């Protein structure tokens, strides 16, 4: 073989290897009852590290550039920042009284944190790590999401049974939309310009049109539902039902239930894998993660994580 061609092959092989390493998405599971985060390598579905974080870790959001993962710790009012390379906590930020739900601007510059007790959203500058803004929202903000142009925050307020649209810079309230009883998770569907809001006590999902700022549909799920994850490839929605220990699979167009899949006990956080082939579900009571095949809708793996696996937010690196 021509030696230059051989060199070329080596370079090619190295490049492919480097890329496959990069493509290994990690799942960061907050374990609320043991103050840790389990890091799962989704390529072989094994826990590669358990990281000590703050107290009662709950919320999680991976940055869009995959460099950092932010974890909210309502138990000691701080955010842990994990470096995805070293898998160490590199910084902590003190915020509010009970930081829980979080979302990130698409340029990774602003982290928005909803505080459950203070009824406030804090804006943290991710470069200076300082709180640079705060504004009041409704009673017990449980879920938060952001528009794809980063201009509007969508905040579910559990005790107001409402979703607020809030200007992400000024805090101005742009819309106040009544939903079901005790809304929790809020998931944006940018392609369809919709939000899916899960109501824990009325056991249903409200579909809000973002442009109209209006509820356009609702559909029932099962006991104590928590949050939606979207599978665009198969046009499905997956909803965790905490007290049914199941996931409802719902058609993304007709909103009819297609299947109910039993997972571990008390599932909470749920994410579709970036490759679209599987769904990861954190089971709070069991301290496990269930993996579901998005094509067959069958459970393929159960991974032991830690006590109180919650993983509320975008827990798989993107």
């Amino acid at each position: 073989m021509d030696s230059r061609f051989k060199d070329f092959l080596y370079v090619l092989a190295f490049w492919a290897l480097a890329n496959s390493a990069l493509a290994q998405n990690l799942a960061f599971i907050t374990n609320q009852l043991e103050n840790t985060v389990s890091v799962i390598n989704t390529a072989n579905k094994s826990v590669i590290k358990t990281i000590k974080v703050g107290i009662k870790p709950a919320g999680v959001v991976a940055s869009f550039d995959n460099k950092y993962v932010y974890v909210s710790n309502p138990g000691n009012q701080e955010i842990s920042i994990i470096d995805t390379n070293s898998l160490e906590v590199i910084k902590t930020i003190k915020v509010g009284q009970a930081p829980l739900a979080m979302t990130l601007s698409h340029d990774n510059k602003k982290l928005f944190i909803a505080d459950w007790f203070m009824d406030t959203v804090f804006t943290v500058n991710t470069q200076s790590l300082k709180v640079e803004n705060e504004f009041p929202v409704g009673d017990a903000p449980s879920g938060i999401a952001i528009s794809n142009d980063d201009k509007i925050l969508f905040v579910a307020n559990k005790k107001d049974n409402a979703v607020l649209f809030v200007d992400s810079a000024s805090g101005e309230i742009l819309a106040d939309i009544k939903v079901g009883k005790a809304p929790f998770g809020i998931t944006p569907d940018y392609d369809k310009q919709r939000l899916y809001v899960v109501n824990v006590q009325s056991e249903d999902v409200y579909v809000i049109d973002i442009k109209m700022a209006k509820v356009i549909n609702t559909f029932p799920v099962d006991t104590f539902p928590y949050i939606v994850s979207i599978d665009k490839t198969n046009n499905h929605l997956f909803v965790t039902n905490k007290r049914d220990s199941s996931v409802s699979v719902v058609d993304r167009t007709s909103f009819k239930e297609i299947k109910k899949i039993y997972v571990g006990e008390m599932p909470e956080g749920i994410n579709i894998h970036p490759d679209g082939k599987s769904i990861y579900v954190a089971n709070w009571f069991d301290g496990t993660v269930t993996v579901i095949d998005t094509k067959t809708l069958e459970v393929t793996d159960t991974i032991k994580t830690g006590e109180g696996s919650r993983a509320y937010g975008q827990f798989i690196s993107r």
Partner: protein
Amino acid sequence: MKFLKLSLLSILLTPALASAHGPTPLKFDLEIEVNASPDEVWAVVNNLCSVKDWNESITECSSTGEGLGAFRELTLDNGEVLKEEVTKVQADRKRMLTTLKVEEGRVIKGMPIRSMGSFLSVAESSSGSKVKIRGTAYSSFEGKSPPPDRTDSVCKAAVEALHTKTLNGLKASFESK
């Protein structure tokens, strides 16, 4: 000086080692072996007020309805009343969920919880049945520094004590027959 006194006072009032609170559920997970068949045990626990016969902390019980949507009111030996609703029945799995919601502002003496969801399940085992009571409860205190009688650990201990008495009493009621 006044400031110093106040800060000293606040240090003294902060319960030592009590973990701060957030929107975090408390977990309980209890089980017992009962020397009776699952069918027998399931029939007994489906009679919602039968619990009064064997849980010594429950002095009175009244119930309305049966199965899904049924309510029961338990009076505890300290005079507090707990109103529970049956919110899920999975007869095929011999599993039922009762939920308790405490009115806003009310603090139950000795068990300062805001809400609780308890799964009671009966499964076959080598000694007859394995009965489990597992679920979650939330503290009624909202804020990061609860008074010492309203901490998460007080809530968890109280809930576990009540359920443990139910399980122990249930076992004894079969085994004394």
